Every structure is written in C-alpha cells, then in structure tokens.
C-alpha cells in the first residue's frame, strides 16, 4: 500500500495525460467510445482523488503521499553543488481538499459534456490536458513544476473557449467567444509572467540552486526582497483568483466557455490562484505577507462588494454567476489576508465550497441555455414548471451562495467572518453586507426566472424542438448536478472531517510563518 500511496499523486496527474494521448488515436467517428473512455478515466481519477483526501492523516500532518523523481540535472556549481529540477509531489491539509475538489468537478464536468455537439475527441483531449495541469499545480512541491503545470492548464483554454464556447449578443452588449477566450488567455498569461519573474527572483536570491518549496521555505529571505516579491506573487496568482481590478477576464471568459470548462475554470482554476498565494506567497515570503496583508484585504473587500453589485446589474444568467464568482473569491482573499487560523481555514473551505457551488450553477445554466438558446433574464420567466430538477438544483446552489445554514457556504463564510472580526472588524461588516447583496441578486433570480409567471407562448418559442418531449435535464446532467449538490450538503452538515484536515494544513503554514517572523 505504501508504494501505491507514494505513486498516488503521480497516477492522478498521469491518468488525464494518458487519456489525452490515447484519445488522439481513436477515430473521431466513435463518439460513444470517446465518451465512455473519458467518463471511465474521469471516474477513476475522481475516486483516486477522493481517496487521497480521505487517506490524508490529519494526525500525522505535513506533506503526505510525498515522492520525488529527478527530472533534469543542472550543471554542478561550486556555490550549491549538484542540484536538479525534481518532480516533487506531495499534499498537505490545504492541497488535499483541492485535489478532491478537482476530482469531483472534473468528473461532473465530463458528465455535463455529453451534450457537446461537435469534435468530441479534440474537446476531451484538451479537457484532459487542462485537468492534468490543475492536478499538477495542487500536487507539486517544486516551483518549476508548479509553474509547468500552471502553464499546462492555461494552454488549452483558448481553443476550449474559442471552438466550443458561445457568444453573448444582446444587441447593445456583444461579447464574442473569441473575445472572451483571448481576454482570458492574455490575463492568465500576464499573471504567469509575474509568477515566472518572481519564481526566478526567489530561485536566484536563495542561492540554493533548487526550486523545491520545502527547501526554499527554510531560507528566510531578506525583508526588502520579500516586500518587493510578495506583491508580484500575489498579483500574479491574484489575477487568476479574480483579484479586483484584474477580474474582468473572469466573467467574460466564463460566460463564453462551454459548460464543463466554465465549471473547471470557475470551480477549480480560480482556486489555483488563491492556492498559489498561500503556497508561494504566505509559505515562502511570510514577512512580505504580513506587511501586505491589509492591501490584500482591501482588494478582497472590493472584490466582494463590487462583484456582488455587478452581479446585481447583469441581464445574462451566466454573467450573474460569473460576477458572483468574483464576489465569492473576495471572501477567499479576505480570509487569506486575516492570517489567523480561523480566517485562513475559512478561506480554504470557501475555496472548496465555492468550487462545488459554482460548478453546480454552471451545469444548471448550461442545461437552460441548451434547451432555450438564451440566458436573458428578461426573457426567461417561470421555467420551474417545465424544468423542476433544474429549478431545485439552482435553488440549492443559490442558497449555498447566500450562505444558508446547513449548506457548505455558511460554514466557510462564517469562519471567514469570525477571522475577520478578530483582526479587521470593519472589513468583516463590509463582508456581511456583501453577503446581503448576494441574497438580493440570487433570490431575485430565483423568484423571476424560476418561479415567476410562465408565459407558455414565449416558452414554446424558446424551447428547442429537440427537447420538446423532455425539457428538463437528462440523466447525465442530473447525475452531474446531484453529485455536486450532495457534496454541498455533506460539507454543510458535517464540516468537521474537512475542518480537521484543513486546520492541519493552515496551522503548519501559520507555524512556519511565525517561526520565521
């Protein structure tokens, strides 16, 4: 079992890659084969990722499932001897839930992709590349590979959105999918530019000749250096996390993307950013984090309020979800900025909770869009009558979003608020106001779009003939969204197993920070 455990993370990263490589060789006419191979591999990976979380022992703590392989030897240097770039894998209490999150969202994304109309093969090849990259970032303990996998997850985005995405056209407000794809890609790579520069700066400054994160964490960098590099790291990863004012790619990109890609992107990829801030920023540059935390907190607060207000003003159903992501990622950033156990744990739990919740939102909106070919809130009204499942599932996601007790969002946001009141009470109040605005836009949406007065004429003109027999979601989409909804309920009702693991990770990060301050 030990050998299996030490290879587990490698296998989790490898299976999607193998999937991508093997799908290339399957003739594109074999749609069923492609679907089933993708679903099977996705399922196996999800089970393994859940196992990774469940088997993570919070008593032992530290980096588990760790293993490393020498990848490329660097020329030997008298300053630091023979060093090598190593594929160094391992997860702690913070990355373990992220791995599981990726597994669940990825698999439900595959289930929701049954309805893709063209080029299944290419879609799944690129999708698997994306997944492999995401797993890789969460599992890497080496700055080089963290960056490698980060770029790998960015690589397929342009094509995924550009080919299979959808454009928004409201006459007065037009956003083509190419625009969304290009914007998202350039923003993400702009983030990676800053990350790359700071990785090189950290590497050079340490003088160790290694990219290994645990080794670099022991260095204790010069204070000035930390003050300069921490904002670079935070901005670089922050762009990915939707940090205001660099969040605009997120609504545009997520709206343009096909359902599964929106799910993975809003659900998991944005968490990569927050995770990067914790792993690289807080862990390697604690003094910088200490000094810059108020700024991060301020930006996070703007995220929450601004994102919620923007969501309030949207006409496109998917844009509402897009801006709600921006708003919710604000809580994560605020939680990180508290730099105390409760706030940081809340932030990590919020990452998990928001990932699942937003994936559920996107499945549901994807179903509606596919049936009616519109996402216009002005047009859609009272669709719950014909789409019962969809309405219920949207309601679950919505209530999670506004923080109803018993659902995962409540626990996470509560922890963030408690953490905030310990350090910055005013930001805590603003955060609660943000939650209030969230309640307004979600409930307004639920009231009108789902439970408003249905006009059968409009409905019939909207509904695609293909779906006239069964306008509600099909079994695959139901399976996909029910898995997500159950996860929300489990986390909401029994948060303690999750909190134990997360607390272990958070305590270690904070202890390492306290040790070097």
């Amino acid at each position: 079992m030990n050998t299996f455990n030490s290879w587990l993370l490698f296998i989790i990263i490898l299976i999607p890659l193998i999937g991508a490589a093997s799908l290339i060789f399957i003739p594109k006419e074999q749609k069923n084969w492609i679907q089933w191979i993708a679903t099977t591999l996705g399922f196996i990976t999800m089970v393994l990722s859940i196992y990774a979380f469940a088997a993570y022992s919070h008593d032992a703590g530290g980096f588990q499932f760790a293993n490393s392989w020498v990848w490329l030897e660097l020329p030997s240097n008298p300053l630091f001897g023979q060093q090598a770039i190593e594929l160094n894998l391992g997860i702690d209490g913070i990355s373990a839930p992220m791995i599981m999150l990726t597994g669940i969202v990825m698999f439900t994304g595959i289930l929701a992709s049954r309805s893709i109309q063209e080029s299944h093969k290419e879609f799944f090849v690129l999708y698997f590349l994306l997944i492999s990259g995401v797993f890789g970032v969460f599992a890497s303990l080496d700055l080089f590979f963290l960056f490698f996998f980060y770029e790998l997850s960015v690589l397929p985005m342009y094509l995924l959105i550009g080919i299979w995405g959808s454009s928004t056209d409201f006459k007065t407000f037009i956003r083509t999918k190419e625009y969304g794809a290009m914007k998202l890609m350039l923003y993400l790579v702009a983030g990676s530019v800053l990350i790359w520069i700071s990785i090189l700066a950290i590497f050079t400054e340490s003088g160790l000749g290694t990219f290994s994160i645990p080794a670099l964490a022991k260095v204790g960098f010069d204070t000035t250096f930390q003050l300069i590099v921490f904002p670079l790291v935070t901005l670089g990863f922050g762009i990915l996390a939707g940090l205001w004012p660099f969040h605009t790619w997120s609504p545009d990109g997520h709206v343009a993307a096909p359902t599964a890609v929106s799910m993975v992107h809003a659900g998991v990829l944005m968490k990569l950013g927050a995770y990067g801030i914790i792993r690289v920023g807080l862990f390697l540059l604690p003094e910088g984090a200490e000094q810059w935390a108020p700024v991060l907190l301020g930006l996070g607060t703007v995220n929450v309020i601004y994102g919620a207000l923007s969501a309030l003003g949207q006409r496109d159903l998917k844009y509402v979800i897009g801006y709600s992501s921006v708003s919710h990622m604000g809580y994560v950033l605020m939680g990180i900025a508290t730099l105390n156990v409760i706030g940081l744990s809340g932030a990590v739990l919020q990452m998990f909770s928001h990932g699942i919740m937003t994936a559920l939102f996107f499945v549901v909106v994807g179903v509606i869009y596919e049936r009616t070919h519109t996402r216009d809130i002005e047009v859609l009204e009272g669709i719950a009558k014909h789409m019962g499942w969809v309405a219920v599932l949207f309601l679950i996601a919505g209530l999670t979003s506004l923080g109803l007790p018993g659902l995962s969002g409540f626990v996470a946001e509560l922890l963030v608020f408690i953490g905030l009141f310990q350090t910055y009470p005013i930001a805590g109040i603003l955060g609660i106001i943000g939650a209030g605005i969230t309640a307004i836009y979600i409930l307004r949406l639920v009231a009108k779009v789902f439970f408003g007065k249905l006009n059968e004429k409009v409905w019939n003109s909207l509904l695609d003939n293909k779906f006239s027999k069964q306008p509600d979601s099909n079994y695959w989409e139901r399976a996909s969204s029910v898995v997500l909804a159950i996860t929300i309920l489990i986390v909401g009702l029994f948060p303690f197993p999750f909190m134990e693991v997360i607390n272990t990770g958070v305590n270690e990060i904070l202890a390492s920070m306290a040790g070097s301050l």
Partner: protein
Amino acid sequence: MNNLTLLLPEIFVVILGFSILTIDFFIPKNKKWILPCFAILSLTGILIFTLVFLSGKTDELYGGILRIDGYSLFFKSAFLILGGILIVSSVEYVNKNLSNQGEYYSILIFTVLAMMLMSSSGELLMAYISLEALSFGLYVLVAFDRYNIKSNEAGTKYIILGALSSAILLFGISQIYGLLGTTQFNEMADILGNTSSINPGLLIGFLFLIAGLGFKVAAVPFHMWAPDVYEGAPTPITAHLAVGSKAATFALILRFFISGLMPLMIDLQIILIIMAALTMTLGNLMALVQSNIKRLLAYSSIGHAGYLLLGLSALVSINQSGNFNLAFISNTNFVVSGIILHTIAYGISNLAAFLCISIIYKKTGHENIEDLAGIGKKSPFLSMVFAASVFSLAGLPIFAGFISKFYLFTGASMQGLIWLVAIAIFTSLISLYYYLRILKYIYIEKSKDSQQINLSVISFGLLSVLFIAMIFIGIYPAPLMDAIHHATDALSMLN
C-alpha cells in the same frame, strides 16, 4: 597531414554536393526524385560516420584554424540532421515550384558544409569564409524561384544587405587584426586578458564585428532585411534562414565569445543588453500587425533571436569584478547550455511551422493568415502539429519551447540580469497574442470551401517526427541536455 582524416565528414559532404550535381546530368526529368533520396541516405551515412568517428576526439587543425571537439561534433551532427530535414521538406515544394533540382539540392548541401565549418572554426578568417560560404549559398537559394518576382526581390535585397554586412564584418576583423596582431580566438583571449586598458580602436573593431554578425542573425537594428527575404524566399529556404543560418551563426558567436572575447565581455555586455532588449521588443511588437504568415514568423524569429542575445549578454555576471573563478565558469556554462537548448527547441518548432506553411501553400497557393481559415477541419493532423509548433514557439508546456525558455531565463537571472529577463518574459506575453491569432484562424474560423488537404507519406512522416521531438524535449529533456552539457564543457575547457 595525418589529421586531415579528422576533416573526413566535411570532405564527404563536399563529395556529396558535387556528385549530386553530376548525377543530375544523367537522370531523366521524371526521375529527379532520385536526387533527394540519394542526398538523404548519404547525409544519414555521414551523420553516423561523424558520430562514430569523431566522438571523443579533441584536436586542432592547421594551427588552430579549425577545432575538432565535443562542441563542433554536437553542432556538426545537428546541422547534418537539419540538412536532411530541409531536403525532405523541400521535396514536394521543389517538384511543384522550382526547376533545376540538382543545383538546388547541391547548393543546400554546400550550405550544410559551411555551417559545419562555422561551428568548428577557431579563427576569425576561417569564420568569415565559412560564414560567406553559407551566405552565398543562401543568396542563390533565396532567389531560386526564378519566375517569382517576390523571390527575385528577396534575393536582391538579401545579397545587397548581406554584402554590406560582410564588408562591415571584414572591416571589424581587419581592425582587430591590426591592433592585436592575431585572428586566433585563443591568442586574442590571452592578449586581452593581459592588457589592463583597452584600445578604443579595438572596441570599435569589436563593435563592427558585432554589427556584422547582428546582420546575419537579424538582430535589431540590423533586422530590416529579414521580413522581406523571409517572405519572398521559397518556404523551405525560409526555414533554412530562420533555423540553419541563425543556429550556425550563434554556434560561431558562442565559440568566438567564450574562447576569444571573455576578458572583454564585461565591456561589451551593455551593448548586447541593449541589442537584446530592442530585438525582442521590436520583433514581437512588429509581429502583431503582420498579415502574411511568413512575415509574421520572420518577426517572431527576430524576437527569438532577442532571447538568444539575452543569453549572450548573460555570459558574464552583471556583478563580475574581473576574476573568473569556478562559480563563474559554471554559471556561464549554464547560460551557454540554455542558449544551445533554446536554439534547438526554437529550430525544431520553426521547422515544423514552416513545413506546415509550405504544405498549405502547396494546396491553396496562399500565405496569408486569413487563408489558414478552417485548416483544422481540412487536415486535423497537420493543424495539430501546427498548433503544437505555435505553442512551442509561444513557450507553453508540454512542448520544447517552454523548458528551453525557462532554462535560458533561469541562467540569465542567475547572472543578475533579472530585469532583462523580465522584459523578455513580458515580450513573450505579447507574442502570445499573435500566436493565438494563428490558432484562431486554424481552428475557429470557418473555411469557404471544404476541400480536404491530404498529406503525402513524406510530409506525414516528417511532421510526426518533428511533433514527437517537440513533445519529447518538452517532457523529458535530460538526454538532450546531457549532449548539450558535453558540448558546453568542451567549449569552456578551451577557456
């Protein structure tokens, strides 16, 4: 004369070049395919012979004019492989568009010879002569499409500017010879290392030399010829210009800088830094507005030359105080390995990209980016390789371009040039925009017609080889890096 045997690979290449010219007389028009087959088989033979015969041998010929060592062995094999790839990728293009096949292939082989000599020359005049041999071959090849006005125009521009740059180069060499009394790299290093003050005339000589070499690698501000020539030349020759000629010139520059100019590098560094910054910024900015795909790749290759120049400027540390200790040498080795790796990765990606363009041109007769519309549907494999090469040029993983850029930039920042590296990384963000535009036309735009593009067996084979090479280097660069380290070690031992 015993060590004449060490030149056997070059001698064989000469014989091959002449025998192709001769065989050409005796075979009828419809059997010309024999020529490339013969050439490729012979080049493979010579490659194997070179690897077996020269491995581990270190020697100098004619009092240091030519050096046989691990470095030259590495580049000789690389250029022989490159020659083979260029010939394979030319076959269909030449059949369809060019006459006088014999001359085409033999001149191509002579340019391979010139490149091999460039990588092993240890003296300025030899370097100059081999560089000229390469350039003359390329002048002819660029203008080889006789009835195409663009090709003629490109040839004329290239020869005029090329002659000018050669004159500048030669002036620089004579200035250096006049002041130092030697053209040997090693002796130059000795003299420069022992003098404390540098004659301004000497600095001018080196400036001229750098300007002349800058022309050959199309570094800003000596890049003006590149886009026109790249656009007009037959596509396989464009690939040659972008890959072969650039790689050979960098091989020459590296040896010259490392074994001859090291004591002076601290003084020249600022010039190289400025050139590198200008080259990568301008190249990538100008590429944004191009509509012809070959011009676009021309500017992108100017940008890449900028990254290589960044490597050159990082040969010495910015904080170097003059004493060359062991740490210094190993950092320099790091950077040199990075330059070589990036040259190879960039070369493979560019070869793949130009091969795709040449295949598309053969079918459609167009070379504008708009004409790439819908290729993704017409030929999935071709577009996959094209996309991969574009991603590799943009520096995204799992392709070769990612690791090579990362390695080179890491080396440069270890030398204290992190600000220049930051500029380089920002320009690669700019480059992403035009690379993505190519992808947009390939995959997202719909094509007007639905005519399929069928790949011949040759193209399919070559494309797969390049595709696998890109991914292999990107995922597992260790074997290639081993070979590169051997080459680099050979170079620094001379120091």
